[in-house]
């Protein structure tokens, strides 16, 4: 089987070497030391994941991260600057991961593996939770084989929450992800959640999307 490729963007040569050695056990790695090189490589070659240090000698790592947004590769960001990390997280909200430096290698590897696993899952075009199936490519939803009709917004919400089971989504985050720049309030999200719940409940799936008081919504991973 062809090995996945990882692009390591790190200007500290010693750290880059260690990262390449560790990730090299499971993936093909490419190391670059500048943002410009990173963008050129990411543009011309296919990577599954970009490990991006936000503190680069030639350009702001945030800018690199922004330009990588349309890229197929997942992004895991490394930074010693927490303020940058929070900005980036606002930018991606679930589409990327980050880790603060200094870190333990096991932590980093765990993040990378988790990203790779969810990537592999996404490639099948199907996300599941128990008997609930969401075909993200073919755009259909079914519970125990019976189709459930969902609007585009409802599908998007369920896709996001099923792909990130266990994660709490605040209403603000959901407004961002579902409506982007459109000027809608949290009420719109509440309405979508309410409709999804009714449809899932009617199909017999029970309570899938739970309300976490004051914080947002959660889809619990189904315990095996």
């Amino acid at each position, binding site marked *: 089987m062809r090995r996945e490729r990882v692009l390591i963007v790190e200007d500290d040569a010693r750290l880059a070497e*260690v990262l390449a050695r560790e990730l090299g056990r499971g993936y093909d790695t490419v190391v670059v030391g500048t943002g410009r090189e990173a963008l050129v490589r990411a543009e011309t070659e296919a990577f599954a994941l970009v490990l991006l240090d936000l*503190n680069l000698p030639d350009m702001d790592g945030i800018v690199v991260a922004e330009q990588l947004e349309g890229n197929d590769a997942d992004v895991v960001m490394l930074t010693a600057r*927490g303020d940058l990390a929070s900005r980036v997280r606002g930018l991606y909200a679930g589409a990327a991961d980050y880790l603060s430096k*200094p870190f*333990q290698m096991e932590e980093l590897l765990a993040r990378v593996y988790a990203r790779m696993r969810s990537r592999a899952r996404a490639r099948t075009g199907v996300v599941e939770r128990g008997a609930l199936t969401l075909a993200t490519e073919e755009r259909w939803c079914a519970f125990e084989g019976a189709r459930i009709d969902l609007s585009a917004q409802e599908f998007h919400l369920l896709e996001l929450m099923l792909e990130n089971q266990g994660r709490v989504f605040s209403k603000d985050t959901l407004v961002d992800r579902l409506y982007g720049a459109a000027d809608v309030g949290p009420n719109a999200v509440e309405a979508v959640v309410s409709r999804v719940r009714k449809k899932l409940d009617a199909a017999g799936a029970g309570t899938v999307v739970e309300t976490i008081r004051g914080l947002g919504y959660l889809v619990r991973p189904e315990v095996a």
Partner: protein
Amino acid sequence: MSLRALVGLGVALLALLVVASSSGLAYGWFVREQSAELRRLLLEDVARVSALLDAPVLGAAFVDPATPGFAVQIVGADGGIVLAWGRDELLPLVTQATQVHLSGRRHLIASAPWRGAGGTIRVAHDIEAAMRTRADLARSLGWGGALAFLASTLVALVVARWSLRPLELVAERARAVDPEAPQTIPYAGRSHEVRALTDALNATLTAIRERSRRERTFLLEIAHELAAPLTLVHYHLTALRRERPADAELRSAADAAQELLHTSQDLLVLARGELERPLDLALVDLRDLLERVVGEYPGVRCDAAGPAPVIGDADRLMQVVRNLVRNGVQAAGRPEGVQVTLVAGADEQLLRVEDDGPGLDAEALVRVFERGFRRGRGSGVGLTISKDLVEQHGGRIAAASGAGGGARFEVRLPSLASRVAADDLGGEA
């Protein structure tokens, strides 16, 4: 004393002074003019009577019958009344116009010689009405003054309150300034003094903010410089230790590197202000975190019932658990002296870390979570951060003396169940 009361009092005193002096002047002027007029009228009458006696005019009367309270007496040389109008009792002889009481009413009397007979002419004017007018005036001035005084005091208080309101507003906003990130105080009013005060305050706040921004930037630079070497040292020592598990010196170095890494993570959290960063919330099983941390400190005794699900930021909760366990191991001097217990409850999850170290004295129990308070070998920030993080998660942390004489730390976090809203299907279920 408040500035408002001071201004009010000042204006009131000033008003009192103005009202009293102007009333006094007006009253004095009135009394003087009135007295002079009364005296003039009396002396005119005396002169008229005197002239009539000296050279009588046909048809002229000594007394105008329409004038009430007017009395004239012509007294002979022997002191007997020759002629009297208006009054029969002998009027006293005076050398100049004099005020006297006659039958209970005030009169002004005057005398003049009766040149023809060696007697006297005596004239009296009833001035009771005029005196009443004078008293009325005094009363009116008194009441008017009092009213003016009250009104001006009231106006002064209202104006003082109104004009000092911007000051209170600025004080209110100054109180609301967050010392961690001081924002300037807005003031759009027109008061020059308040604007000057606000500008001065804002200049100070801006300087403080700028300074703390520079300090933070500096700390971030240091953080960045230290991050890669620390990661590498920890990585290499841990790898070497795995290769040579029997090497005691290597184990000591690897432990120290681990220590350094975690302490620096704590310090960086403080330096970067990550505590103000929003938490990355997810469903977290405290038992998983606990097992991972206990794995980092072989020898620590662990009694974890579970699962113990909470809503939280896994990285941050991990930091809390790690800090508590590390703190216990440091206090006990060995991992075997630490007992960790996790009790999963319906409403909250209880994590207890007990050590058999020297324990906490009364002062330490109170101050153990304060920044910079040191206990044993600890950096002093771990527990501070843990407290902040636990509270950010809606939980509580407490320190107590353990049963065995050591210290006991208890963290209570709201359980997942307590956070799930019951009306999930909006009444449709």
